[in-house]
């Protein structure tokens, strides 16, 4: 699972990675590499179309936030990125989604394998009703990335440490994960995702079920994870997007209305609809 830059895809970034006013980037504004990208993505649930011509790039080792009013397709798009939509009957999809330039919807792609590259954290914490240890050790053992007991012990410890949960649970690894507090459960789910050593982590409103303090902890965690992982996060909390995300996409009615680096999008939106949304005038 190397995260080396594949030059072929790096060039795909240019259309989106320009300044808001269209001026070319300065030397300091380093050209980021594209990790995942969607091209002309359309999606239907049965006969109703939920996504229209989505073009979006998620940059390597950056946080990309997806914002927009309820029902605009943020979760649907997120699920396209690790093919969780495959599990919903009657979903039809058109267009391309790539990971490091590889089409993830290609026939030869193994979905199960794909999801070990692209982890996911859900809105409601959903730890397995097993011990904390098992929650984390389960997938590595399954995928054969951790086999011996000591390997797994190390993996559990390092994952929990990275998720900032180690100090709180180190002495009770065999208690059920479901007995933790909501915020702890969510960090356990993040630790569980990290343990598979993914390259991308998708998060669908990961803090919406948490209190402000737990939210702050999770946000700090996201900030840290950014150094090693590409993160795509759906959020309803605009401040949160502003705090954690380098890039933000505004979705509306199944379309990407605007995509830019977060500062520009929030301070100097190009589109009227974006401005209306972030100033709270609709939604």
């Amino acid at each position, binding site marked *: 699972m190397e995260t080396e830059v594949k030059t072929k895809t790096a060039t795909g970034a240019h259309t989106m990675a320009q300044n808001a006013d269209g001026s070319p980037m300065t030397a300091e504004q380093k050209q980021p590499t594209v990790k995942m990208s969607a091209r002309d993505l359309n999606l239907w649930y049965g006969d109703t179309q939920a996504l229209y011509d989505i073009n979006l790039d998620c940059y390597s080792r950056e946080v990309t936030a997806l914002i927009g009013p309820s029902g605009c397709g943020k979760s649907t798009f997120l699920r396209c990125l*690790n093919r*969780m939509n495959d*599990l919903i*009957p009657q979903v039809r999809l058109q267009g391309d989604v790539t990971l490091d330039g590889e089409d993830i919807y290609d026939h030869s792609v193994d979905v*199960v*394998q*794909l*999801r*070990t590259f692209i*982890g*996911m954290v*859900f809105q*409601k914490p*959903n*730890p*397995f*009703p097993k011990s904390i240890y098992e929650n984390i050790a*389960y*997938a590595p053992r*399954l*995928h054969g990335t951790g086999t011996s007991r000591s390997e797994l012990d190390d993996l559990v410890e390092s994952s929990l440490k990275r998720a900032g949960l180690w100090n709180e649970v180190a002495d009770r690894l065999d208690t059920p994960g479901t007995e933790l507090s909501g915020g702890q459960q969510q960090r356990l*789910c993040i630790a*569980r*995702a990290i343990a*598979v050593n993914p390259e991308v982590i998708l998060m669908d409103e990961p803090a919406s079920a948490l209190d402000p303090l737990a939210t702050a902890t999770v946000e700090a965690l996201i900030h840290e994870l950014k150094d090693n992982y590409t993160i795509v996060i759906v959020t309803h909390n605009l401040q949160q997007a502003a705090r954690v995300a380098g890039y933000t996409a505004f979705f509306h009615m199944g379309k990407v209305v605007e995509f830019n680096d977060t500062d520009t999008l929030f301070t100097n939106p190009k589109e009227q609809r974006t401005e209306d949304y972030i100033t709270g005038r609709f939604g």
Partner: protein
Amino acid sequence: MQRRLTGSANDPRIKARYRGEKRFKAYTVTALFVAFAIIIAFFTDIISQGYTAFWRTEVNVTIDYNERAERIGRFALAEDMREIVSRGAVRSIPLDIRNNPELAGTTRQEWVPTYSRIDQYFKGNEELPPEMAAQVEELMEAGVIRTTFNWAFFTAGDSKLPELAGIFSAVVGSIFVLFVTLIFAFPIGVMSAIYLEEFAPDNKLTQLIEVNINNLAAVPSIIFGLLGLAVFINTFGAPRSSALVGGLTLGLMTLPIIIISTRAALRAVPDPIRLGAFAMGCSRWQVVRDHVLPLSLPGILTGTIIGLAQAMGETAPLIIVGMIAYIPEAPGSIFESATVLPAQIFTWASEPRKAFVEKTAAGIIVLLAVLLTLNAAAVFLRRKFERRW
């Protein structure tokens, strides 16, 4: 100040409403009371009729292994005792002597079961001719008649002599039958449910299958008996009256129950668990094996136990496949002729002799006790492992 809240107590319409409410409540309480009274009456009746079967009357006699007893066992007894002692108790004496020649010429004191009418006389169920009554009262005075726990009821098979009849062969038959039912219906039922719930696409065909399975659960059990007769005995030539045929027949009947309860148990596992597992890169089978099944197992077992309990009480389909035969010896395998507990009860219930009344009731007590235990186990499993999400 005008009082608006208290004045209405005398309003006839409100009074009528309260009356109606009281009446309705009285109806519901009465209904509950009637239902409860019926259950109590049933249990009281069965237990009062049946408890005596757990005791039996024995008489202490001298057994004389003389020459005539080598041919007819009854001659081992003193003449006045021959009517008192159960015929079954001395039946084996000639054989005993043949197997053990040293016995010849010796005598021995022994407690043996009495003739069933004397047993019934002491239990207050039957009258005896006056001379006989006088004789046994005398024996009672002399201390050679006693009442002991009737172990034979649990260790003996069926018998034409009520004082010797027991449930052992029927219990063994029931165990064999349930074993076959379980082996047949559990894997097929659980697998089918897993396929329908976790793998099958939601299309016309699976919907059709689903409707049919639900209908199957409502088919009268005797139909399954006819099916078992036609398929297992006539087509596949399985031995008639055997536990194999009975178990397979009941398995057909239990299958829909297991499928339906397994599906309910699988459906109770919340989707976020599945999604979480899928997102970790689990294949569908890994999701089912590692996450869904462990969580739904208690529910599956509960449904299975309830299905088995229902199968255990079933009689009609087993009569059709011939499991109502007179089976004094417990079957040695699932291929031998066997009977089951409810069929044994049915046989005893159709006996005209008075002494079988208590056997019937005692059989019912045992059957009920087993069924209650099974259902209690199911409830316990459900309570113990029930999860709230």
